[in-house]
């Protein structure tokens, strides 16, 4: 059973386009994180959201946590080739007493110049 569903799995767009990646679950999360991974490296944390309805911006990236804390989205404005990579969402469920993170399947983004 996959607790976190990410969509789309693959995305290939032209430089300058906008895109949104979704992360959905039937579980409630105490916090949700977004990571980005480049080839040959481990994932690196982009942002953590903890409050329902929270919106965080990181330059051209906008992250939103759903009001019910069951879903999240990552929106990239005017994508650039440097945004290419694997984007992963991860969350700690409220029922977990260990803080163990559950990862989504990932979204592979390719931005063509």
């Amino acid at each position: 059973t996959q607790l976190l569903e990410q969509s789309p799995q693959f995305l290939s767009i032209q430089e300058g386009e906008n895109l949104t990646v979704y992360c959905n679950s039937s579980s409630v999360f105490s916090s949700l994180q977004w990571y980005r991974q480049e080839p040959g490296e481990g994932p690196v944390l982009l942002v953590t959201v903890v409050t329902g309805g929270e919106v965080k911006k990181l330059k051209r990236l906008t992250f939103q946590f759903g009001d019910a804390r069951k879903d999240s989205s990552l929106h990239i404005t005017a994508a650039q080739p440097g945004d290419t990579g694997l984007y992963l969402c991860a969350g700690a469920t409220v029922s977990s007493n260990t803080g163990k993170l559950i990862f989504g399947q990932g979204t592979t983004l390719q931005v063509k110049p």
Partner: protein
Amino acid sequence: GAGVSQSPSNKVTEKGKDVELRCDPISGHTALYWYRQSLGQGLEFLIYFQGNSAPDKSGLPSDRFSAERTGGSVSTLTIQRTQQEDSAVYLCASSWDRRRGNEQFFGPGTRLTVL
């Protein structure tokens, strides 16, 4: 260095051999995770150590896989009688305990190829 380190970076082995993969977490981090990642795919959880608690082994795919964490620091993932389907990148991550936030810091991974 201050980050998570893993060794070896690459490992090529023959089917049926045993392999050991090592992870050195960030000093002071109480939580340590092992994941497996196939090419371009997401992370498959393997095992989770948190302080002195019993490890969460629910992600280990078979009894050929085992891991230990000695002294609350270094961890070793052992795969016995390797199979070709074990070929993947094995990632280790560490984090502070839940009260200090559970951002995971990842190592660069070990790429395992089973011939």
